[in-house]
């Protein structure tokens, strides 16, 4: 018992990830925490997407279940779990059954290497970014299997579209990623890194987020990735695999109940996963904004208070809406519920002000805040852009993004090697 406790405590003093420290207990804890956090994030995204889309279209969105529809995701989840699980008569049973599992596994496994902080990752692999790209590219297999196994025309068309689309955009995505990996090699040793934590640390060492590196080269790479990642996750305006007006629901037309909810879960966690790649590679991962302009103890303190202030603000907004609730007696329970929710948010905010908590969650907060920005962008895209036609989609992928990515790669390598190239030219002219 004492040895076990000591084993558990021994990790607390280390500054490594549980995977690197080889501590099974904390690795399991981290995996459970990440899984829990992801599930909460997906539930929150479900509600936020419906609300924000509704407000963009001057509607109210879900209002009935809970105050401002806050309990709607839970009601949806219960509905999905209670629904009958239907399999088409001529479907290929085994493939139909495993397809959603593969999609979910691929979407969740990538979070093994996502760095929420210098020590807040399940593990750090020296092929981190390759691992993320590789495993997330496996999800297209699940989609293709689902479309084929349904033995129906709409899903098959959706699966064909999705495989063509994802394979095309993976190329542009990979080129943008390689340009970042070239940037990581600009240090004294001249060796870059593929590890997710290493990439953020090299941004810290170079004192610059890679989105601003070699302006505008970093920005172009970021833009390529930001476009390709929307296509990669089959979201609007690239949601051709599930275009409602053409293919009913695309590759998951024949899925119902729990299996459909697995696809839903996988789609949202894949969105979070690619956003985390973008944040890690270009936006400095867990680093807080402006670490070199606004440095010093005072600024550190101010930025460490931001998480708490954010939650207090959210609580204040909630209480503002409590005051605005209708005064009718039928709304009494809803008003109390909303006030309770606001109180919980405020308490979380106060908790985040405590110095020991503040020091530990700062990096997680900044990472999550940046990812949340991307999540909002996803909703914004869906609310504002019309869907592409398939030939337009292919044209953008192969004729715009791919050549830009290739040119960007060559330019980045050239600018990174500029002193060496300059020396070589001088040496050649002097001879």
């Amino acid at each position: 018992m004492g040895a076990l406790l000591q084993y558990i405590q021994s990790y607390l003093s280390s500054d490594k990830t549980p995977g690197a420290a080889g501590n099974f207990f904390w690795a399991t804890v981290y995996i459970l925490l990440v899984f829990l956090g992801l599930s909460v994030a997906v539930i929150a995204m479900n509600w936020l997407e419906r609300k924000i889309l509704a407000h963009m279209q001057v509607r109210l969105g879900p209002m009935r279940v809970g105050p401002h529809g806050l309990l709607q995701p839970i009601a949806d989840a219960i509905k999905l779990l209670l629904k009958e699980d239907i399999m088409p008569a001529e479907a290929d049973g085994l493939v139909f059954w495993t397809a959603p599992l593969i999609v979910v596994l691929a979407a969740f496994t990538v979070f093994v290497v996502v760095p929420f902080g210098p020590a807040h990752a399940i593990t750090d692999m020296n092929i981190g970014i390759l691992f993320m790209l590789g495993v997330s590219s496996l999800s297209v297999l699940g989609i293709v299997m689902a479309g084929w196994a349904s033995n129906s025309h709409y899903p098959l068309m959706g699966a064909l579209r999705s495989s063509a689309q994802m394979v095309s955009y993976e190329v542009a995505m990979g080129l943008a990623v390689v340009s970042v990996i070239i940037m990581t090699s600009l240090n004294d040793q001249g060796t870059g890194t593929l590890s997710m934590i290493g990439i953020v640390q090299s941004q810290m060492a170079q004192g610059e987020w890679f989105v601003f590196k070699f302006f505008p080269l970093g920005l172009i790479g970021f833009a390529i990735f930001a476009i390709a990642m929307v296509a990669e996750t089959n979201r609007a305006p690239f949601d051709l695999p599930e275009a409602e007006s053409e293919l009913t629901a695309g590759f998951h037309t024949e899925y119902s109940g729990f299996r459909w909810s697995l696809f839903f879960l996988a789609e949202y966690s894949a969105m979070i996963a690619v956003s985390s790649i973008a944040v890690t590679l270009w936006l400095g991962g867990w680093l807080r904004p402006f670490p070199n302009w606004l440095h010093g103890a005072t600024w550190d303190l101010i930025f460490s208070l931001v998480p708490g202030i954010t939650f207090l603000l959210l609580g204040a907004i909630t209480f503002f809406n409590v005051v605005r609730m209708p005064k009718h007696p039928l709304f009494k329970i809803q008003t109390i519920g909303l006030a309770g929710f606001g109180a919980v948010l405020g308490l979380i905010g106060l908790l985040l002000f405590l110095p020991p908590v503040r020091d530990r969650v700062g990096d997680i907060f900044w990472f999550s805040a940046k990812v949340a920005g991307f999540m909002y962008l996803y909703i914004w895209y869906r609310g504002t852009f019309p869907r592409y036609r398939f030939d337009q989609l292919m044209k953008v992928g192969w004729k715009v993004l791919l050549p830009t990515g290739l040119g960007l790669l060559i330019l980045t390598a050239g600018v990174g090697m500029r002193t060496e190239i300059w020396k070589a030219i001088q040496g050649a002219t002097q001879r």
Partner: protein
Amino acid sequence: MNPPVATTFFFYLLAAIMLIGGVFVITRKNAVHSALALIATLLAQAGIYLMLYAPFVAGVQIILYAGGIMVLFLFVIMLISIERSLKERMLNRQWVVGGLAALALGALFISVYVKGKNLFPTPKVPVFETNNTQTVGNLLYGQYMFPFEIASLLLLVAIIGAVVMAKKRI
């Protein structure tokens, strides 16, 4: 220190997955099932690469084979009518040639198994894991520059050939 992952158990597990997957590839009548079994085989192979302390090769194996090439395989197979291929005969009754080939291969395997250690050079200490990517890069752009460029030229020719064959007017 972490316990080593490259244990014999994992080798046998991955090898078993590869063998079973390989057998399924050739025995399934349904081409999609064969392709899926092939994907399982390729993923297990990536695991074997990891056990050989070659994480970069393992990652590339997953991205290229499992994520890229096999998706295109499935893409093509799904366009073919499965019903017709289900009715076709799988074995083409060339027992004599097949048996001879199997015998030759079996003899080769047995001889390798018996002579084992003498046939191969003595094992080297594996390259340290963290430098794997750099080592691969240095070898590809240093010692093996010429074969690497030749291979890329070959791929370019294949791409141009595909475009010429697919498009009537360029």
